[in-house]
């Protein structure tokens, strides 16, 4: 039986009234093309990447995975000269349900942190599903990280201090990247910031049922994203952890994680479960469940009181991580 969902935070409920014309809860396969052309993604990407001249911005084409096309990295570094030490690097993975977006989408959040922390942001572009099914996305993200670790010195970045961060599908890919670098012995990450991450293809938690038809990215949209990635495989027992990190049998040996999620969204239960499993194997994680938050609320309504608290918590965690 489906229980009544938690109410949206009052300000966020009002914000949904404004954005519902641009972004609806559900999304089906045949709507993907339209949404990619739509105003929502366009506006998400339509940002001042220099943040009033604070950053110097460069688009860099770098080698992709073996046998695959080059990928594009967006590199934003503070224009002011660095101090004696090289800067930490925030390796950003964009959201968009694995089917939408580009390396501009959502990068404003990482830029806001980087401005406070004097860090470099590298935002990776990956191939989208369904044209490019698994593992194109995670392999692109991995290739971008390898290049970043090897070439960090070229833009004043410290290869020993790379944090991966992403929201939604970008959060899921960030978690997968942490698993993959652990298992392949790839470039070492010092932290993973998983914002309302998309972790579990099974789409069967109480929250995924509770929030059907509500807010942003409901179970229909979620099914669309996972189907685009995995085709007929989604939900079956053999889905790999690098596609859906919730499938990982072993969450030990991962870098410290920051996870957050709204209480009123599809992903609530899978994110809480993921954090719990990190603790259960002796890992380090900080989890915030924002009451009444819909999916991605701090990006859609950054002015709301809850969004301000949420952004402050993210920044405070990064500050502690980087000052260690």
């Amino acid at each position, binding site marked *: 039986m489906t229980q009544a969902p938690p*109410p*949206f*935070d*009052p*300000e966020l*409920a*009002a*914000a*949904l*009234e*404004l*954005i519902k014309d*641009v*972004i609806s809860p559900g999304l089906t396969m045949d709507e993907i093309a339209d949404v990619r052309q739509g*105003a*929502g993604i366009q*506006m*998400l990407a*339509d*940002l001042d990447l220099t943040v009033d001249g604070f950053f110097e911005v460069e688009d860099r084409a770098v080698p992709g995975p073996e046998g695959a096309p080059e990928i594009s990295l967006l590199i934003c570094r503070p224009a002011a000269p660095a101090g004696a030490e090289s800067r930490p690097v925030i390796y950003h993975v964009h959201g968009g349900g694995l089917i939408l977006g580009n390396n501009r989408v959502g990068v404003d959040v990482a830029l806001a942190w980087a401005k406070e922390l004097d860090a470099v942001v590298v935002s990776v572009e990956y191939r989208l599903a369904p044209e490019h099914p698994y593992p194109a996305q995670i392999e692109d993200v991995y290739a971008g990280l390898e290049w970043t670790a090897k070439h960090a010195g070229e833009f004043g970045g410290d290869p020993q201090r790379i944090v991966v961060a992403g929201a939604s599908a970008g959060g899921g890919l960030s978690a997968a990247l942490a698993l993959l670098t652990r298992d392949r012995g790839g470039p070492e990450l010092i932290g993973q910031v998983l914002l309302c991450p998309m972790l579990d293809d099974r789409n069967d938690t109480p929250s995924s049922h509770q929030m059907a038809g509500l807010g942003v990215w409901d179970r229909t949209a979620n099914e669309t994203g996972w189907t685009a990635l995995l085709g007929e495989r989604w939900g079956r027992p053999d889905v790999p952890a690098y596609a859906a990190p919730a499938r990982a049998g072993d969450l030990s040996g991962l870098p410290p994680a920051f996870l957050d999620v709204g209480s009123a969204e599809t992903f609530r239960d899978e994110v809480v479960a993921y954090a719990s499993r990190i603790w259960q194997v002796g890992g380090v994680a900080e989890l915030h469940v924002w009451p009444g938050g819909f999916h991605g609320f701090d*990006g*859609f*309504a*950054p*002015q*709301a*009181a809850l*969004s*301000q608290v949420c952004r402050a918590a993210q920044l405070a965690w990064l500050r502690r991580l980087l000052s260690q």
Partner: protein
Amino acid sequence: MKELAGRLTALDPDAGAAVRVIAYFDRLAESRAGLEALVRGAAVLAGVPARLMDADRRVHVRVETDGTRRESDLPPDPAWPSAPLTPDGAPALWLERDGQAEPSVVDAVILERAAGVIRLVLDRTRGRAPADDPALVETVLDGTAPEAARLHAARGLGLDLAAPARVLAPLDGRPRIVPAHLDAEPPVGRVGVGPAVAVLDLPRSWSEARVALRFTAEGTAQDPGPGVVHADELGGIALLAGLVAPGAEPPPDVQALESAAAAAPWLLATLHAVASTVSLRAAAAEITVHHSTLQERLTHAEHLLGWPLRTPQGRFRLGLALTMRRLTRT
């Protein structure tokens, strides 16, 4: 609607934006949002800082366009678009938009909807405004009521029991109790202003406010004088109020004024200017006549009244007569 990322940023002034503004505030009202969320909504939708100032309830909320709350030392600019919380009330919600002759349609919708919801929230969370609850005000101002009852009523009105307050006595209307430290909204119309006192002393502030009210005037040619009088500033003149009862036979000097005024329509305004300014030149400027014209008028007035007006004693007698005239009328 010009949103960044479907985000809440400034709206374009078109009809669609107005509809969204209405939906936004309706949703806030439905989900019982607080004051700050409402002021933030106004700021975010208008794209300029918004502030709510309700002197009666000591509410002061200012929110910037990025949603952060930040107070400002500067008073509101009367030119900003604003809305009252009660019909005909003082402006309470402001959009800090400079240099505009009149508010845009969207600004007007934002102000109207936000003020409407804010009123409901204030009534729900802070109690009704003092002026709106005559029974409680009456109890607070009743010196014969038990202290406990008066304190309870004061709490019901949202008064801070530790801070001084004063009573306003409007000519037409019920008494209003306002916190003493708030001078942001000067009273309008004919009002007697009582002294600032502790909450339990408000009956005294009320009686002094009513006395002060009797010293007010309409401010017209036939009833010149101040519309707002502070009891604190009357000093010994207040004693006159006990001597001159309204409607009783006027003292001889007042009768002289009345008959002189009947003979010369300019007389009362001219004499008020002479009695209330520091010099004859200032008086002439006040009523916009030439200095020599004023001299001629004074000669004429002295003749009609029967006492000199250009000596200190004569001016004092004139001031008293004008003041007593107000007391006979109120």
